[in-house]
């Protein structure tokens, strides 16, 4: 029965939030994972892209990352259609009021262990929209964020770096701890 340091920090973050179900997360955190699953995840992280109210700038840079010039797929990454297939959640945009329930729901639909990458200044601190009444705060106010990629929009190289850093910080840490 092992809880990695990373997971412990994350579950403590979640416990005081009313819309998360603490029991659900504790059960998953306590479940021992086979190392083969963790290793496979590290080699082929699947991404889900969620637009929580961005200006399209970051979204088209994510598409560029998957195009032949930058080719994120060489790291085994793949953009998937359903959050239930994904390991990594790429969130762009300052969260709008309308999208908040969807952001939380998509986050909950991603199976454990999940990693969240906030892409762009909007997702990190709201950027130019931070004072708007329609914005309900940056992403990490509502879901735990593992890696932040700065820029408005960030360059494709930085998005790749952010996804890789997230994999090392999140999934990699877990898989090494489980040995």
């Amino acid at each position, binding site marked *: 029965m092992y809880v990695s340091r990373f997971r412990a920090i994350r579950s403590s973050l979640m416990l005081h939030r009313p819309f998360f179900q603490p029991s659900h997360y504790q059960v998953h955190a306590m479940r021992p994972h086979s190392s083969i699953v963790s290793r496979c995840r590290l080699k082929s992280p699947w991404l889900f892209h969620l637009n929580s*109210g961005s200006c*399209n700038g*970051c*979204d088209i*840079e994510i598409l560029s990352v998957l195009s032949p010039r930058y080719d994120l797929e060489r790291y085994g990454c793949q953009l998937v259609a359903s959050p239930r297939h994904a390991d990594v959640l790429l969130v762009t945009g*300052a969260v709008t009021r*309308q999208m908040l329930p969807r952001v939380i729901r998509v986050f909950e639909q991603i199976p454990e262990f999940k990693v969240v990458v906030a892409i762009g200044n909007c997702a990190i601190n709201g950027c130019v929209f931070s004072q708007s*009444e329609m914005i309900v705060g940056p992403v990490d106010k509502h879901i735990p964020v593992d890696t932040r990629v700065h820029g408005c929009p960030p360059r494709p190289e930085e998005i790749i770096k952010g996804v890789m850093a997230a994999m090392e910080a999140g999934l990699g840490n877990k898989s090494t701890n489980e040995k």
Partner: protein
Amino acid sequence: MYKSETTMTDPTRIIPVHYDCFKLPFGPVHPALKEPISINVTVKKEEILDVDIRLGHVNRGIEKLAQSRNLVQAIHLIERVCGICSHSHTTCFVQGLEKLSSIDISVKAAYLRTVLFELERMHSHLLLLGVVAQEIGFTTVFMHAFHMREHILDLFERLTGNRIHHAMNVIGGVRWDLNPGLVSSIHVSLNVVESSIKVLRDAFKDKTAEKRLCGVGRLDPSDALGLGVVGPVARGSGLVIDARKDNPYAAYKDLAGAFSVITMQGKDAYSRIEVRIQELFESINIIRAALDEMPAGSLEKCENPMRLSRKVPAGEVVSAVEAPRGELFYYIKTDGKDGLSRLHIRTPTFANIVALKDILVGGEIADIPAALASLDPCISCTTRMIVLGEN
């Protein structure tokens, strides 16, 4: 199919249930959608009976936010209305302010705005062609179009320092000048892109692509005129509408001979795509002509934009440009104290998205992604505050 039978006797509690039609929700988070939009489609077997569009998922309150900024900050904000057509938004806003305070920008600045404008149109159209190809299951063309797009983005970066939000426009001119080395590299890139667009054009002439797009999402010219659609959607239905010709701005008056308005008579998704492919060639012609006719010498140094912004008098003005998706319209009301008292933005997608119902009704479920993509919707532009009534 059996009919619904209500067992309740109270007539006020009878809820009509139609077992022969089914409501299919799309979005706001859906694999076929790149941006949050909610489309509820009522279907009978495969046939679409009704479409209900809900916008507002990406409403960031930009119009309200702009009222709390000064004019120079507002340019920054307005650039972030949309990441794909950011230069169109700032050009439209800045030229409105210039009209209001009767500032004449230098000829070279106007030409540079035009060059950037057309490069933006190319990158937007290539993006769309890639997305359409992906929607019809033609991933090779998607990758090809995105690879071509990178050439244009490289030019943006060399011209302005940024790939997406260019920050090129200031009140009274542009921020950066061209150097001779850059002019030749633009020509080289345009040659590369031109030969690749020919490949794209042939790819879309393939029978599979034609079968997926021809006859899908028909929009008759009379309907198009009635709905007030703009841009390539209107031109794909045979309407000759182009703000670059009808209402020339920047350097389009001088370059009017370098391009023609592309129209197609097919009225379907395929002709809307074809219009965009042909417009790519026209954009290349415009850029080449603009680089040739651009006045020699360095860019005239314009007055300090902060000082100019303080000189903008109180008043109201409208401004329109032809963004990649159609006519973009701004209503600007300034307070005379370096601020805005009202800003209204009507984006091309806001005009085009209403045609979605006409396009989809009568079609099949499998055609929804292709028909939607052929409109080239940009939801983050479109979303404004919408009041749906008291109830």
